[in-house]
């Protein structure tokens, strides 16, 4: 006999998981602190530590929007593929900070210069937003575009990335919290 799960109970479980999103985000932010921050350049005006809060917010919204009931289980997704670069198509509606961190997580081979909207002095939009350029290309373009020709190489150049950033999280304590809350909630149903 196939077991039928009450949609109301599944909805209750989703709500409980949503109330625990902060603890998933905390674990990812711990990883961010440990595996990305130590490699940043203190003098970089676009260093990842300045993006911490924005990245946390991105993760929170992303996880909240990706808790889905699938069959008899619940799937929690994290890491918007199109904004972080795990995809063929890039989502243009993203921010400098998410782009910077997404690129660091993927890793980049070779020497690059980070060009930010504040540097180009251009209006916001495709041209104005942050991007990286091969160092050789940057030097070639800098004079004609009025950018700083001495801009240092981005510290995350030739960085192998953190390919397992979103996987292998230990969520045992989270699962036990959720089970506990769910048990309590069932008493009131």
């Amino acid at each position, binding site marked *: 006999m196939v077991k039928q799960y009450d949609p109301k109970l599944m909805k209750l479980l989703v709500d409980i998981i949503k109330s625990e999103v902060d603890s998933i985000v905390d674990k990812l932010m711990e990883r961010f602190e440990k595996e990305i921050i130590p490699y940043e350049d203190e003098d970089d005006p676009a260093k990842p530590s300045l993006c911490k809060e924005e990245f946390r917010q991105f993760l929170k919204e992303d996880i909240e929007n990706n808790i889905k009931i699938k069959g008899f289980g619940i799937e929690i997704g994290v890491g918007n*593929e199109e*904004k*972080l*670069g*795990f*995809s*063929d*198509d*890039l989502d*243009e509606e*993203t921010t400098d900070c*998410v*782009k*910077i961190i*997404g*690129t660091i997580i*993927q*890793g*980049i*081979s*070779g020497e690059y210069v*980070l060009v930010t909207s504040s540097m180009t002095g251009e209006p916001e939009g*495709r*041209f104005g*937003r*942050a*991007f*990286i*350029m*091969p160092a*050789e*290309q940057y030097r*070639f*373009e800098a004079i004609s575009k009025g950018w700083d020709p001495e801009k240092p190489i981005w510290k995350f150049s*030739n*960085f*192998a990335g953190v*390919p*397992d950033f979103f*996987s*292998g999280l230990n969520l045992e304590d989270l699962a036990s919290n959720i089970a506990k809350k769910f048990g309590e909630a069932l008493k009131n149903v």
Partner: protein
Amino acid sequence: MKKLRKEDLSLHHFIRFNILDEYIETDSNVSLQYNSTLSTVGSYVYESVSSKLPLPTSFGRGWVYIDEYGDVTEQQSAITVYSGSGAVISGSDYMVDYIDGRIITASDSIVPAAVTYKYFYVSLVNEWEDIEAADVPVVVVNIESFKKEGFQLGGGRVVPRRCHLHIFATNRSERDDLSELLYDGINQKCCPNQNWTKGSILDWNGTFNDAYIYETIEYHSSLRFENVVSRNINPPLLGGIPRKNMIMLSDLNRYRARIDFDMFHWEEQ
């Protein structure tokens, strides 16, 4: 040699000859140039001068040294050396440096003039730092982490290792071909966990190691691959480059993919 190194070598060998064998190319009638600096009395060195790009002897490539995956003896059909008159020189009259693409003779009476050889079109490297030196297409093999876990009952343990293949290609089609080939090549497959007791197949100087023997590690299973996931990589900061008013130089990060997988084996002791 530690176990991790042996597994790394086994995985490399498997990828090189069992998966990427489709990417073995032939370079025909390539001139050989005498190198007086490297030559000594009794060792005359001739270097190949290839016009192929990427260079067959660039980092992570080299000439093909066995005929088939599983062979334990030096290739018999991958390399043919010709004299100035176009006659084939017997394989017993020279040695081959497979890494640097050189022919070495013991006598100055044998003068090789040209060579036809098979080579690895795809560069296979271990370090992220080596990608730039290798020229695309490049595959980076990265074994990241491991833990050794005991079985719940009885002795022995399972050793899982987290691995990644980073693919850098020249264009979209090549990236898609390479990632699908590599994915199919390892997904739910296994490869021998070789012991390499007499060293790897090539010696430090690029010549064939005649002492090489094929043997697997006793009381260890083969290396199995699971949880294989392939995805294209498109670093978001590269997406914002204003291409319209710029002459773009080449960018090796443009066509990338990554394959994540777990490699594991069981040990009986």
